[in-house]
């Protein structure tokens, strides 16, 4: 028992906080994340991608999960990426999995135009390594935003499935 190895994933978070599940609290959380990322010099385009994805994730929780307890956002920073984990105690995802988010592929062909369904498309398009699990009554959603700031401009972004 004494020599139990430390899990390799233990790393002190760059940012961790909880928020009540309302649209206004989600907005304040996004402003807070944005301010923190800008303060440490992460490029504006990368911050935009974090904000777009996290906005859709948090809004989905507010809109659909009906969580009674605050949601928790954890951001772990590595040199070239941010790992973001969002926990909420709301209802599970329908069918226990994430929506496919392909609507926008053909959305503009539709008449009338759709007014929704863009959220999961944006998440899937901008986030990497998207994972969802249901554990101990909580939704665990994690994703990675690769940092492609000017300092790494010569690097190719990570390959993504179409």
């Amino acid at each position: 028992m004494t020599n139990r190895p430390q899990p390799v994933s233990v790393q002190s978070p760059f940012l961790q906080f909880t928020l009540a599940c309302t649209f206004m609290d989600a907005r304040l959380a996004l402003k807070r994340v944005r301010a923190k990322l800008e303060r440490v010099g992460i490029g504006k385009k990368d911050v935009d991608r974090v904000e777009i994805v996290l906005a859709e994730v948090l809004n989905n929780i507010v809109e659909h999960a009906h969580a009674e307890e605050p949601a928790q956002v954890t951001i772990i920073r590595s040199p070239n990426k941010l790992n973001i984990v969002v926990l909420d105690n709301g209802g599970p995802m329908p069918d226990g999995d994430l929506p496919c988010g392909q609507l926008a592929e053909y959305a503009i062909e539709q008449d009338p135009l759709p007014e929704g369904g863009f959220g999961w498309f944006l998440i899937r398009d901008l986030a990497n390594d998207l994972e969802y699990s249901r554990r101990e009554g909580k939704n665990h959603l994690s994703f990675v935003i690769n940092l492609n700031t000017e300092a790494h401009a010569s690097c190719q972004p990570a390959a993504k499935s179409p």
Partner: protein
Amino acid sequence: MQLTAQRFPDATLITVLESRIDAAAAIAFKDGIRDLADGGASRIVLDLAGVDFVDSSGLGAIVAVMKLLGKERTLELAALSPAVEKVFRLTRMDSVFTIHPNASEAPGIQNLTS
């Protein structure tokens, strides 16, 4: 939701005086634009120069506004910030709307002082 309208003979310019059109603001945005668009010119130009961020709910509200204007009136957009432009481009809604670099470059918008 703070919005202002300037009426020109050929277009109504509606300026959004909020930094975000997001899930918290989408309904107020939709209602506000609908009220301001009533009775004006058939072309509505929406100046988004002050808007830093639009999420999918905000995008949905902009599409909803376009639809409720009907076939006789059009909604054009102006001055998209990089983050807003990105959301429109990724969802391909940039091909649905006429988008002007600045409101002052939209036809029918005259003598903008702002």
